[in-house]
């Protein structure tokens, strides 16, 4: 029983960290139909901003997160206007080539400017150390990540399903030309959705930095995992991504606890099964 509980806690923590980082990608892929392979690069930029703000400028952790989110969005806006706007609606191969190109540029620039060594975001005393849950102890930071994950999920769901802006987003996704004809400025909708996705990437990059350490190759190293989450959950679906993260987190954690020598066998086996049974992901929308 203790083992089951213990695995459950780890799975939840790992799943939520994955969720916070991947959900932004789900937004760009599902709502904006852009295969954004530069998602990891934006998460990394966020992490570097926070690391610089907290470590070198001595700001607080919360301020660091704010700097990361705002800074990354400020960098992303001109990129959206100049580069991404050209590939909305373009064939997926074009999108893949351009965004992977951006990723390599970001890796190169980061390597040049900050060097290849690891960067960390120092935690505030409150999030340091571990919390005793009775049957085991868990890093305080993990609990913070779990809370952040649920908050992000709830906030996004509310934004897309319950607000006026959400209506416009959904309409733009379904039929951009028709929505524009009805007087919605779709380019603004796209720009704001993109900014939200980037902000989420940056946020995820910062709070996930304990699990996925920041270094220039971060941008590429974890991209497969993020893509898996989106394809299993169904692009653009918030509940889908949440379920996918929890499911994959559980499978991965259980496999690692009980049979680490199998490596990621169970993880990818589950992915193959799910994608075979649900080609559009667990909660993907039919076209």
């Amino acid at each position: 029983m203790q083992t089951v509980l213990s695995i459950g806690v780890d799975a939840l923590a790992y799943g939520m960290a994955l969720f916070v980082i991947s959900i932004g990608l789900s937004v760009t892929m599902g709502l904006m139909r852009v295969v954004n392979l530069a998602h990891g690069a934006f998460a990394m930029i966020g992490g570097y901003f926070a690391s610089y703000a907290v470590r070198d400028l001595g700001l607080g952790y919360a301020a660091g997160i704010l700097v990361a989110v705002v800074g990354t969005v400020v960098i992303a806006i001109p990129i959206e206007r100049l580069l991404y706007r050209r590939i909305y609606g373009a064939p997926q191969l074009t999108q893949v080539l351009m965004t992977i190109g951006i990723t390599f540029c970001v890796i190169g620039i980061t390597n040049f400017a900050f060097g290849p060594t690891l960067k960390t975001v120092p935690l505030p005393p409150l999030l340091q150390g571990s919390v005793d849950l009775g049957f085991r102890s868990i890093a305080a930071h993990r609990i913070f990540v779990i809370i952040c994950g649920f908050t992000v999920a709830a906030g996004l769901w509310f934004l897309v399903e319950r607000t006026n802006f959400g209506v416009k987003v959904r309409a733009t996704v379904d039929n951009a030309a028709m929505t524009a004809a009805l007087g919605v400025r779709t380019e603004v909708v796209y720009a704001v959705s993109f900014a939200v996705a980037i902000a989420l990437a940056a946020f995820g990059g910062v709070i996930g930095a304990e699990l996925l350490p920041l270094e220039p190759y971060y941008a590429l190293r974890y991209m497969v995992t993020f893509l898996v989450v989106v394809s299993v959950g169904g692009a653009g679906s918030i509940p889908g991504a949440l379920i996918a993260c929890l499911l994959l987190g559980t499978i991965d954690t259980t496999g690692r606890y009980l049979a680490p020598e199998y490596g990621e066998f169970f993880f990818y086996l589950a992915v193959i099964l799910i994608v075979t049974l649900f080609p559009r992901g667990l909660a993907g929308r039919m076209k």
Partner: protein
Amino acid sequence: MKKLLAAAIAFAALSGAAYADTIKVGVIGPFSGPFALQGKNFKAGIDAWLALNGNKVGSDEIQIVYRDVPQADPARSKALAQELVVREGVQYLAGFYFTPDAMAATALLQQANVPMVVMNAATSAIVASSPLVVRTSFTTWQTTTPIATVAKEQGVTKAITLVSDYGPGIDAENAFKTAFEKEGGKVVETIRMPLSTNDFAPLMQRVKDSGAQGLFTFLPSGPPTLAFVKAYNDNGLKAGGIKFYGTGDLTQESDLPALGEAALGLQTTYHYAVSHDSPENKTFVAAAEKAIGNPAELSFPSVSAFDGMYVICKMIEATGGKQDAKKAVDAVKGLSWTSPRGPVSIDPDSRHITENIYLREVAKDASGKYYNKEVRTFEKQGDPGLAFVKK
């Protein structure tokens, strides 16, 4: 224009004939990509050597030719080694960060009449695969074996091993197990984790459940070590009194600023710490820091590259600049000198370096910088792994 070119070629040919030879050394390593830092350390070690000793041996001039293999890629390594030998006409091959890269290139040595000086790749079998290989780095067996003694002496009788599931990790597991059981301890469980593991919490829980008093681990240096050390602290293993033992790969100097507080007190064994206290090392570190640019990036491959250059220069001296691989290798068998890491020698039988292995503890100096503090020396350690190499 044509005339000018012809003149230039004639001049080049003349100067080649009139003056002493240029001896080319081909260095293969990861100079771009995720492991570029290690390649940079090769280069820093070589540059430090050239800065301190000049680029001349007798009247011959050494020229270094670099080739990049960003990740372990034996086919590419072999192709580049061939290119270096055939097109560049190198007399020596050196570098090699990854074992498969070194192994692939050893096949060329005999026919090309070129010795190889391995500056990192740490699997015992490399030196056995060709009589023209000399190694100035270490093997995983060599750096792992002493930590088993340390663990036993600190009262650990039941240990668990947790290693990355690939060649060097398995070497480390076998080395620790063999040495620890020889000391009379018991390894209760051996766990191999995939190289791509990011989340170590479930593994730490398993270590805790195993009832072991000590954890031995091997991970390649790089990003995952950070998450690993944090997981060790955060999951209550440190507080629970499970002792931590590893090799120096886990606490390489360039990762220490990031590991910071979490790594404090970790015990590792290794052949070199940048902080090693000797006049030779002070000179070396000063030159290497200048060569690498950012002192925080200096780490262990630099010293093996520095000593590799020493060995190559001795080879050039012995052969008078003529290409004779066998004579060159024979000349350095049994060679001993004082390296920045301490006294070392080339074992005449295995052509592998015999060196001191140090037990180190991560500590914080007066200026708040984290470093590997050497607390104990295991003198003149050979490579115990050679006995297990299949002939």
